[in-house]
Every structure is written in C-alpha cells, then in structure tokens.
C-alpha cells in the first residue's frame, strides 16, 4: 500500500492530464477533481513521511539497482507539500482566471503534466529518471509560459526551453560520467560507492552547473524574468514558486546526499554563495527598477533564489549537529516560504493586471486601491519576500544570520541586509500605489473565487510558515535545540 501511495502524486496528475486531453468538454470539472486528488495524494505522502518514517519503493519489482526507485524523506515531503498546496491554490484560481477563454483547453493538460513532473522530481531517487522528469518539466513549463501567445511570451519561452535543454543535457553528461564510474543510477547506491575522484568532481560540476542554469542562479538567470513575466498569471505562479525550486531542490539533494564532503568543500560552497550574493543584489536591484509588476516579481525570484544559495557556505562551514540541522531546515523553510509567497504574489498581480488591463506599476494606483483583498495579498506576500516577521523567511533569515555569525562569515550579513532593504524598497514601491485618493472600495473581497486562493497562499507564507515553522524541523527529522 505504501509503495502505491508514493506513486499517486505522480500518477494522479498524469491521469488528470490524459483525461482532460481526451475529454476537453469536461475540462474545468475534471481539472478540479484531478487537482483535489493530486493534492490529497501529495499531502498523504507528506503525512506518512512525517508520522511514520521515510518511504521508499523500487518500481517494477526488480529491486535496486535494476529498477527505478522512488523515495520520500523529509526533504522530499516538504517540497511535495508545497507543490500540493500551491498547485491546488493555483488550480482553483485558474478555473476563474481562464473561464470562458479558449486558453483553458491548453492550460489544464499541460499544467497537470507539469504538476506530475514536479512531484516526480521531488520523489525521484534515480538520476536518469530525474533527467526525464526535468525534461517533462521544462517542456510543459515552456509551453505553458507561451500560452498568452504574445510575441514576447513566445520568444521568452523559446529561450527558456533552450536554456532548460542546455541545463538538462549538461546534467545528463554528469549522470553519464557517474554511470561510467560507478555503474548505478540510484542516488542511495551511488552515495555508498562514490569516492572523491576527478570523475566525481567533474560530474558534480556538470550536474550542479546544469541545474543552476535551470534554477536561474545569477548570472545564469537572464532567461527567467521575461519568461516568468510574460506568462499567464497562474503559470507565472507555478513557474516562480515551484519550477525553479525543483532545480534548487536537486542541487541541495546532491549536495547533502550524494557527493562526498571532500568535493562539496568550502571552495565549492563559497562559489555558490558568491553567485547567490550576486543574485540577491542584482535581482533586487532589477526588481526595484522594473516597470511592470510581473517583471518585478520575476526579478524578485532571481533574488530569492540567491538567498537559498547563501546557505551553502554556511551549511558547509557548520559541523554536523544542531546548528547545521537548523541551517538546513531554515534553507528549506526559506524555499517553502518563497514558494507560497511568490505564488500568492503572482496570482494577485494577475488579478490586478486583468482588472487594469496592464501591469505598469506607475499606473496601478486606482486598481490596487479598488481591490483591497488583492492588494492585501500582495502586501502579505511582499512582507514574506522582504523577510519581515512573522513570515517564514524572517525565521529563515534569523537562522541564516546566526549561522553566519557562528561560522565567522560575517560578510554574508552585508548581502542579506542590503537585499532586505532593496526588497523592502521594491515591495513598498508597489504598495505605496495603493494609497491614493481614489473612491473607497465598498467591500474587502471583489472576486472571491480568484482572490481567496491568492490570499490564502500569501497568508500561509506569513502566518503558517512564520509562526509554526516547527513542522519543517520535525519533517526533516531534526530535534533542534531545546529553547
């Protein structure tokens, strides 16, 4: 039974995709049902991992190393939970967003394929299977991103597709080298066999570079802002919140579980940290200068990905123990918070854009003021992006800064502080538009079906992850320090 439940978060959205392709007339209702089923199965796996133990199954009944393994540990479960909840929110939003539009027919099947691949990446335990999953992810994401059909969207997503292909083929070369050296593709088996060697180092570099390209790590981020900014809002939400996270998740997974400590050493970690710092500064700066709301959100994603990479030098420098566990948990917490917050942000931005007919920040004042719930979502999500309390990213930054002090790497604090201030500047640049002298809105909610998912996602990033971050620790199996 347990093995079956591990397959469901991948099989159910896949089934959903097939059904909506074959029966296009039933699309929204089938879509809603499949989304519910997918979320349910994802949360079920998360709950089992949390309450019982890590799950694992080798498909086909051949066992390792012949078969392909699926595995759910705390790290997978945390990301799976995020993809389930964000996916559900986005699906509900999409029902309203695409209502009456022909794009609806194209959104649902591709979105379910994307969702299946997201869950598939988080549950995969096989390096080649990950390659296939990443390609499924890249193709469906690029196709979804181009759904608006505008020239800018098509061009941006064509570039995104190519960059994704370059990233995954580079990753695959690394996999091929590992297979040449160690004769297996299973992450668990490989981590037992792998030795510090030129081969392992080469594979590490190739895989991490390939994935960093897909994660839009500075300076390989150039493709992200146009692609995310020009997609339809629900697509932007999943692209920014979930899709780039998969590549980050894999880097973290390889870093923690696969490569020996001699290779994931201080120098390598420092390089990742420096790139992350570049991302924080450059992404925030560009977000501040962005003229369009969705472009701002997209650059903010670049910056937030940067924060995630700042954790690597700190994790590397901290000896195994509670402090290191705290850093890993904070890193995951940061990724989850950004997932929820950015999804909420993009969904809300989409509503503003639909209402105003554009998303130029300078001209949004009246619209923002007339939609209190939407603006409130942007504010909540925004405070999570800045890292203000009580959001999850505040807790994460607190732990990260503590780690920087304890590791003696105080220079990261400058980056974190600057990034925080820049983020405050770009978020409040948007929010200040909501305070004008336009007529007073009569009611908080103007379009409940679309506004509530955005609001709940943004709220989760603040209240849920900020005030009850403990489950992230217990999910990852960390005891943590007594208070």
């Amino acid at each position: 039974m347990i093995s079956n439940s591990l397959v469901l978060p991948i099989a159910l959205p896949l089934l959903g995709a097939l059904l909506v392709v074959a029966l296009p007339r039933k699309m929204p209702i089938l879509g809603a049902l499949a989304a519910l089923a997918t979320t349910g199965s994802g949360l079920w796996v998360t709950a089992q991992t949390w309450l019982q133990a890590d799950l694992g199954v080798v498909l086909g009944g051949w066992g390792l190393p012949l078969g392909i393994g699926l595995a759910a540990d705390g790290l997978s479960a945390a990301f799976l939970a995020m993809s389930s909840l964000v996916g559900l929110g986005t699906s509900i939003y999409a029902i309203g967003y695409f209502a009456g539009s022909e794009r609806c027919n194209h959104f649902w099947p591709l979105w379910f394929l994307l969702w299946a691949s997201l869950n598939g990446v988080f549950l995969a335990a096989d390096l080649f299977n990950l390659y296939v999953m990443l390609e499924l992810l890249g193709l469906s994401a690029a196709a979804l991103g181009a759904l608006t059909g505008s020239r800018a969207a098509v061009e941006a997503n064509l570039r995104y597709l190519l960059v994704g292909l370059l990233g995954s083929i580079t990753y695959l070369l690394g996999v091929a080298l590992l297979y040449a050296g160690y004769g297996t593709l299973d992450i668990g088996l490989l981590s037992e066999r792998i030795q510090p060697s030129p081969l392992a180092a080469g594979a590490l570099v190739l895989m991490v570079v390939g994935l960093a390209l897909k994660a839009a790590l500075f300076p390989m981020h150039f493709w992200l802002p146009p692609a995310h900014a020009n997609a339809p809002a629900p697509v932007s939400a999943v692209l920014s919140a979930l899709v780039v996270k998969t590549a980050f998740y894999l880097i973290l997974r390889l870093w923690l579980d696969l490569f020996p400590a001699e290779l994931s050493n201080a120098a390598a970690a420092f390089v990742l940290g420096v790139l992350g710092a570049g991302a924080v500064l450059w992404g925030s700066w560009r977000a501040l200068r962005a003229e369009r709301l969705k472009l701002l959100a997209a650059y903010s994603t670049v910056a937030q990905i940067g924060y995630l990479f700042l954790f690597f030098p700190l994790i590397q420098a901290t000896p195994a123990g509670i402090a290191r566990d705290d850093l890993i948990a904070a890193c995951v917490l940061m990724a989850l918070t950004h997932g929820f917050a950015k999804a909420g942000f993009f969904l809300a931005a989409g509503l503003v854009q639909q209402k105003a007919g554009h998303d130029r920040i300078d001209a949004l004042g009246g619209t923002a003021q007339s939609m209190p719930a939407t603006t409130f979502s942007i504010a909540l999500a925004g405070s999570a992006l800045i890292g203000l309390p009580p959001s999850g990213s505040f807790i994460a930054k607190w732990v990260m800064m503590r780690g920087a002090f304890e590791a003696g790497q105080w220079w990261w604090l400058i980056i974190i502080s600057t990034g925080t201030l820049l983020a405050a500047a770009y978020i409040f640049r948007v929010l200040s538009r909501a305070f004008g002298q336009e007529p007073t809105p009569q009611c908080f909610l103007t379009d409940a079906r679309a506004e509530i998912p955005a609001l709940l996602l943004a709220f989760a990033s603040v209240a849920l992850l900020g005030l009850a971050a403990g489950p992230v620790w217990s999910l990852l199996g960390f005891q943590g320090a007594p208070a």
Partner: protein
Amino acid sequence: MTAAFLYGAAGLLLFALGLWSLLVHEPLLRKLIAFNIMGSGVFHLFIAVAHRSDGSSPDPVPHALVLTGIVVAVSATALALALNSRLEEADAKASSSKTTPSGAPEPNTTARTGLPKPSSNGANRLRWPSR
C-alpha cells in the same frame, strides 16, 4: 577499452562542439541543431560506457537510456521548432501590417484561432523558415 575510449572521447568532443555552437551562434535553428549534437555526444558516451568491458556482452541499460533520451530530444526539438515558427509568423505579420495594435499585454489567442487560410496555389508552398 581503446574502442570504448575513442568512442566516448568522440562523444565528449561532440558535446563540446555543440556547446560552443550553442553559445556562439544566434539563429535558433543553429542553436537547436547544436543542442541535438550535444545530445548525440552524451548518447555516444553512454554507448561507449555500455561497451567498456571488451568481450562480454554490452550493457543494455545505457542503450535503453539512449533510446529514451532520443525521444525526449525529438520532443523538445519539435516544440522548439513550433515556437520558432510562431515567432516568425508573428514577425511576418508585424512587418506586413504595421497597423496592428499590440498594446494589450495578454492578447487572447482566440484572435488567431479562426479557420486556417487555404493555401494559395504555389505562393507559400514551403512554410518552414527559409532563412
């Protein structure tokens, strides 16, 4: 061993060649071909790995991986080409009628879901990019 090395090294060279071309050349078609060459390079490496132990039968797993990889590459290439042809179509439309308003950020695709234009005899026989 020697054969496997030569084959694999050739694959790595192909990968590098493709990478160089992908980075340097701007036309999309060239980039796409470059990507496929990179893919071929990796597939070569897999095949070489499958045959590394001289004498004994080759490892079937890399062969299967290569087959899977080929299908994935074909799919990706197909989608990229389709996106590219949309792009060229849009450019052609833009250059033929400059008056089309293009202010709306998310033009509804229904705008161009009407019946396809019947092919005028001979005029656009070949609709793939000529340049």
